[in-house]
């Protein structure tokens, strides 16, 4: 049995089912409210949800049972009396210590919790970056959407901000430095890259846990790989129908693996030619293979957002799940070999986490 924790424009949904089949909606919470990201901590079983009420602002809530009372977490706010307010929570990720949890948000901020998500504090090192006043937001705001830990080493951390690029820390987030060498956006003239604050619109980043110096990045036009922990990046998008897209995931068992869901282009953010296809590489981006058996093959113009592609298991047992803003949710129980519709009439899907 697999559980999916799904954030939508109109509430949080928890679904259960067997891989390769339709799932059942077991619970809905935060009726009518946008859930930008929701997940369950595999260590404690606790659910955490980033809720961005259009009225009352962004909050993190937690619960053990989605149908029970949710508690509001403390400390999810910027310093009082400043010129900025927290706009949205984009991602929640587990740290490499018991109880350590991170959350990323707009405006390009990182929060950390040491008690499993009950209380939070703002990461001062990133908040106080001298260049912060020059950071440029992407279309979704100045969103910190990817938090990439290093397996077994809480000192090493990478985050990505749209459009302030990649940042690395080797001291638990006390200090940060940029790591964008080799990223070449098509939307900027080459000369503009001399400015370190040129907007670098990273869409999603994942680390290969069995070879943690390897990272994969879906960029705003471009897919990149790093083999040196993010110091340098190489374009690997050749062979895809488009290198524009939002989400990306990997098979934890295979450091050469990555999966992307191409969209036509930044000016037409739907699946190409009305066909939904996941593309897989097993040679670190040298070649890409379409995986679409069971996915909509005609008149399907879907948009899959950056947090709406998830995995559980690995190797031959890898399960893949993604949701679209159409409210459709698809899943594969055989590493992308075949696909099934998991749910078809949810609200627009913002995030998917498979547990």
């Amino acid at each position, binding site marked *: 049995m697999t559980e999916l924790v799904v954030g939508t424009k109109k509430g949080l949904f928890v679904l259960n089912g067997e891989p390769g089949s339709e799932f059942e909606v077991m619970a809905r919470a935060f009726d009518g409210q946008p859930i930008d990201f929701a997940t369950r901590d595999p260590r404690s079983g606790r659910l955490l949800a980033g809720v961005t009420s*259009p009225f*009352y602002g962004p909050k993190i809530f937690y619960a053990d049972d989605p149908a029970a009372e949710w508690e509001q977490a403390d400390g999810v706010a910027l310093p009082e*009396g*400043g*010129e900025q307010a927290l706009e949205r929570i984009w991602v929640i990720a587990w740290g490499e210590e018991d109880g350590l949890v991170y959350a990323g948000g707009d405006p390009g901020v990182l929060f950390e919790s040491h008690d499993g998500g009950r209380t939070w504090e703002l990461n001062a090192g990133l908040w106080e970056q001298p260049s912060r006043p020059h950071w440029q937001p992407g279309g979704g705001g100045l969103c910190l959407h990817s938090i990439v830990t290093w397996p077994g080493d809480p000192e090493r951390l990478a985050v990505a901000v749209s459009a302030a690029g990649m940042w690395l820390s080797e001291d638990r987030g006390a200090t940060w430095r940029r790591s964008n060498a080799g990223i070449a956006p098509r939307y900027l003239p080459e000369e503009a890259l001399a400015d370190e604050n040129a907007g670098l619109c990273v869409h999603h980043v994942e680390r290969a846990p069995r070879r943690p110096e390897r990272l994969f990045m879906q960029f705003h036009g471009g897919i990149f790989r790093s083999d040196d922990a993010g110091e340098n990046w190489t374009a690997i998008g050749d062979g895809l129908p488009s290198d524009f897209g939002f989400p990306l995931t990997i098979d934890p068992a295979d450091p050469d693996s990555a999966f992307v869901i191409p969209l036509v282009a930044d000016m037409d953010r739907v699946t190409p030619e009305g066909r939904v296809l996941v593309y897989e590489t097993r040679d670190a981006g040298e070649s890409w293979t379409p995986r679409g058996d069971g996915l909509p093959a005609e008149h399907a113009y879907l948009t899959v957002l950056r947090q709406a592609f998830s995995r559980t298991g690995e190797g031959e047992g890898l399960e893949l799940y993604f949701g679209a803003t159409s409210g459709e949710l698809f899943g594969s129980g055989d590493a992308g070999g075949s696909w099934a519709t998991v749910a078809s009439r949810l609200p627009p899907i913002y995030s998917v986490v498979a547990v």
Partner: protein
Amino acid sequence: MTATGSESGTRACTVCLHGPLRKLAGGHAELRIEGTTVLELLRELERQHPDLAGWVLDERGRIRRHINVFVDGERGREPTAVAPGVRVEVLPAITGG
């Protein structure tokens, strides 16, 4: 629930809460709160009911974009003066999709 609050003298205003704000204020639909501006009222409201912090005012001390405050039926902002005895409604705006 009837009006309540630490200040119930003649200088106090009646602050009316709706939706989830009532629960965060201990179940009170109306509270008697003292202040000379809308911002002072909302700050005092947060002080008396800390669970409301961040729900009406953001970190900058601004009323959230999609919250409306009415002072005796007139739209109010943070610096709007409030006279003793006025009725202040805190309401979610018409928004969404």
